[in-house]
């Protein structure tokens, strides 16, 4: 668990620093297309990290995380479009709304003993409520969509989050690194131990004095708040929001693929998973286009095959065996650890 960085070997550090340096320099070297792919990778790594807090650390399966993406996106976008409130202020409101919603859902579930699969269904239900609700919410465009003034490509305006891909790239990189550090800090403190105890055996955790209700609430609230920031980013990056897309269950599923494939409960898992999945899917798309093929749904089929392969061949995800193979960690016996 805490072996993430503490027990990482020298060449692991060198590798990490090299990757970070490469990521920092990417906008100067990469083409615009490559940069958008990198943004997508970082976006999924960040959102996957946020989801991982709930599922990977505390063992609470959410299949409705698109709810928090959507709430973050709509709240920040609506404040910007209707009242001219800059996203840096809007994100505070976005996080507050997502946290409140997460707290309500978690309270209902945990107070009434809804767990496991039923909890997952509840998270889907709330995301669907939101999708249908926003479909009829005229103030933010209802089903015909909500649009932000399109960014001027040439000039960067950090304050209003208008600008070229490099700006968004650095914002997403900052978020991803911050999320990683936050998760590492959480895992290494009391809350992280308690979450993992709850994940492993809730009754045994209670017998050790853990107020499991409270700690599960913390997991949901932190995860929801972090996920909503990805939503704020989404709104200002894509400039258009459709409930049918933003809140759709396929979005929730897409979000959790990276941590599942990379390694649930690990710190590097969501990042590795996002990198592999997104780059391979984009590569596949490019390949098909090069051959003049246009296969709708090819990406989804590819995701499905990846998931199948990882679940059957590497049930712990790619990161734990990868870390062992690269000898990044000195204690290979800890399977669940990053």
């Amino acid at each position: 668990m805490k072996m993430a960085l503490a027990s990482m070997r020298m060449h692991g550090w060198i590798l990490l620093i090299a990757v970070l340096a490469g990521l920092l320099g990417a906008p100067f070297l990469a083409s615009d297309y490559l940069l958008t792919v990198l943004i997508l990778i970082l976006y999924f790594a960040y959102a996957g990290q946020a989801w991982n807090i709930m599922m990977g650390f505390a063992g609470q399966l959410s299949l409705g995380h698109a709810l928090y993406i959507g709430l973050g996106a709509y709240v920040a976008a609506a404040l910007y479009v209707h009242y001219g409130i800059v996203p840096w202020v809007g994100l505070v409101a976005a996080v507050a709304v997502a946290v409140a919603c997460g707290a309500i859902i978690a309270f209902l579930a945990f107070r009434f003993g809804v767990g496991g699969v039923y909890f997952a269904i509840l998270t889907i239900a709330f995301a669907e409520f939101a999708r249908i609700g926003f479909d009829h919410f005229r103030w933010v465009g209802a089903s015909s969509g909500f649009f932000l003034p399109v960014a001027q490509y040439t000039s960067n305006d950090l304050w209003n989050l208008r600008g070229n891909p490099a700006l968004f790239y650095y914002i997403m990189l900052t978020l991803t690194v911050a999320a990683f550090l936050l998760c590492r800090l959480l895992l290494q403190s009391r809350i992280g131990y308690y979450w993992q105890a709850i994940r492993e055996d809730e009754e045994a955790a209670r017998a050790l004095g853990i107020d499991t209700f409270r700690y599960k609430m913390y997991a949901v609230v932190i995860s929801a708040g972090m996920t909503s920031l990805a939503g704020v980013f989404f709104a200002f990056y894509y400039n258009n929001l459709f409930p049918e897309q933003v809140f759709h269950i396929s979005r929730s599923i897409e979000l959790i693929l990276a941590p599942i494939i990379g390694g649930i409960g690990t710190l590097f898992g969501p990042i590795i998973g996002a990198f592999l999945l997104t780059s391979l899917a984009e590569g596949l798309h490019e390949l098909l286009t090069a051959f003049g093929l246009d296969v709708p749904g090819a990406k989804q089929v590819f995701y499905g095959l990846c998931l199948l392969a990882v679940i059957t061949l590497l049930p712990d995800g790619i990161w734990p065996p990868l870390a062992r193979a690269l000898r990044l960690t000195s204690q290979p016996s800890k399977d669940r650890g990053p």
Partner: protein
Amino acid sequence: MTVLLAISDLSKSFRGLRAVQNVGFAVQPGEIFAVIGPNGAGKTTLFNLIAGTLVPDSGTISFCAERIDGLTPDAVCRGGIGRTFQLVRPFLGLTVQDNVMVGALLRRKDVTTAMRRAHEVMRQLDLFDKRALPASALTLPDRKRLEVARALATDPKLLLLDEVMAGLRPTETDRMVEILVDLNRTTGLTILLIEHVMRAVMALARRVLVLHHGAAIAEGEPAAVVRDPAVIESYLGVEAVD
């Protein structure tokens, strides 16, 4: 001397089956108290009532002169009662050390301080050398000791042990007895144990309560209790007496 744990007139039924009926006893601070009885006598039910896993139908449970019946298991633990599970429940995906850390963090928010406590407890229970192993790699005797270590790390005033000797070989049983006696002597820890292994009960307990069909049929010093005709008939069997 004030009583640490006082149980009076405690009853619990499951759909008409009276698992525990009108049981009462008191455990003094610093003593090792054993509850014995045949399978289905209500030992584990009694245990779960004390630990807060079950709520009694009637009767009271007081710990340190405060009522604890009806409290949740986590509140009971925070109050100073640590428990083990008859069927061990280690956090399989965590290392031995992290398992014990979860217990140690109850009274220490700081990870470094908790780690010191975890190391101390792991040394006491012969688990220190295995601290980096995942709990899933442990054998049953080690898992039993881990169960005790985790509960002990929460610094209980009273430790509830649910058949920690079951499934152990005689030498392993003797080692566990040794560890518990040592803990009791050096730290003054009070222990309430449910046990089938009479070898351990005789070596450990200062007083014994015998349950049969949910009711207490005898209480007293181990040597006297095992000669009690009612106990011999219901539990030990006639051949147990030489």
